[in-house]
């Protein structure tokens, strides 16, 4: 088995300045007074784990335990303060649906824009265009600007684009609660089929039940530290007992 994601001793430090200094006058005054102090906050501290091809890892923990930060570090949005992350294969981040949409453009134009953000060519998107529209159930609204969409419609379109193919690594941050229950079932089924076809999945959820259903491994984070890492059922059981 090949290692798909190797997270090695990753720590992430945030400076929590009480008031953000973002103008020159303020900055100079603070430098002169030596008041440029920050509260340091370690969102992740010495986190290490490896997942292999075909694994699906559920990340669990309370609010503020560093789950989303971990996903952002793995998908390359944040650079860790120390430590390394190595990913093998293309990563499809599903951190927030429709993040790359331009409200003034139509659904059609946004599909190509969003595809480009994920690194796909125009021709590639053209081939998948009909599938995306059909899955998102937006046949009648192809040329409507996205600003006139309901939030459910936007999220459906975002989900359809992000899951249109089977990536090597799929990263999901609590986005399965999209749309009405019918669309939720549909998106859950699609996630399942992506996992079954051998993709490696990193999944954040507050729902222990979803993690147990979808993942074979689990990582329990507490205040940025790894509390437990291993078999999904065991970790979930320990977590529920807390």
């Amino acid at each position, binding site marked *: 088995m090949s290692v798909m994601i190797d997270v090695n001793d990753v720590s992430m430090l945030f400076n929590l300045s009480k008031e953000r200094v973002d103008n020159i006058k303020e900055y100079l005054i603070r430098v002169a007074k030596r008041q440029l102090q920050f509260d340091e906050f370690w969102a992740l501290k010495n986190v290490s784990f490896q997942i292999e091809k075909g694994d699906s890892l559920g990340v669990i923990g309370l609010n503020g335990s560093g789950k989303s930060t971990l996903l952002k570090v793995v998908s390359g949005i944040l650079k860790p303060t120390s430590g390394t992350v190595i990913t093998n294969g293309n990563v499809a*981040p599903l951190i927030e649906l429709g993040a790359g949409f*331009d409200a*003034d453009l139509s659904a059609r*134009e946004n599909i190509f824009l969003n595809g480009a953000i994920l690194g796909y060519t125009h021709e590639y998107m053209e081939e998948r265009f009909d599938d995306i529209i059909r899955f998102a159930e937006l046949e009648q609204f192809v040329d409507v600007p996205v600003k006139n969409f309901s939030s459910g419609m936007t999220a459906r379109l975002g989900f359809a684009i992000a899951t249109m193919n089977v990536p090597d690594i799929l990263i999901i941050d609590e986005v399965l609660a999209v749309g009405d229950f019918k669309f939720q079932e549909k998106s859950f089924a699609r996630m399942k089929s992506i996992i079954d076809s051998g993709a490696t999945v990193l999944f954040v959820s507050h729902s222990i039940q979803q993690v147990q259903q979808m993942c074979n491994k689990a990582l329990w984070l507490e205040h940025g530290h790894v509390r437990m890492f291993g078999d999904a059922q065991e970790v979930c059981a320990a977590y529920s007992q807390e």
Partner: protein
Amino acid sequence: MAQKIELLKQKIKVFLKYKTLLNELVVRDIKVRYRKSVLGLLWTVLNPLLMMCVITVVFSTLFRQNIPNFPIYYLAGSLIFSFNSEATSNGLYSIIGSASLIKKVYIPKYLFPISKVLSALVNLGFSLVAMFVVMIVTGAPFHATLLLMPLPIFYVFLFTSGLSLLLAAATVYFRDIAHFWGVFVLAWTYFTPIFYPVTILPSFAMKIMQLNPMYHYVTYMRDVVLYGTFPGMKENLICFLIGAVTLLIGLWVFYRKQDRFVLYV
């Protein structure tokens, strides 16, 4: 050394992967700007034409300068200058304006300022059409040196890209720059011979003028468009070096700071 080449190869591969995105960003810029206007893209040609009319009327009645072929004199200079000011003014907002995207997806960040420079370049292309129209209407001669026009545009493109990268990175940390830049560009407009001839300047001001990069680009453009002369080796070298050095500084600062953008936007 081999490692460096490997790194460069990697960078080029990533750039090629995101070529489509760069293209989409530029197209989006232009589409969104002219959406819902009746004349649409025609405005890119119409705008410089109308501006030229206003300036020509003002400077041929109120402030007489007696520059032969004033409309072309003005257009050749102002098109190059507007390219720079449009690209830098949009470029400095490009990173903070894409905050929502930068926080959620990994994208090479230089794409944002560079896309603004490219859409300004597309605009410049349309504006050149306006210039050719004016040249035909006013019966100005078409010199063979017109074919060399890509040269000054290439030089100013290097300069503007570097400046935009620098400003985009700096604005993340100091938002003041966004407010200050508008005033600076206005002052810069007056300190560049766009609607007056340099000959009216006293000699000490002329010395300072040599330090103004836009002066060199504007003059170069006029030489090939209006006067049909090809600037010498020295002028070519100056224009190229200003551009290349600015671009290198811009890239260097941008690369050093880009990993921390996401924490500040």
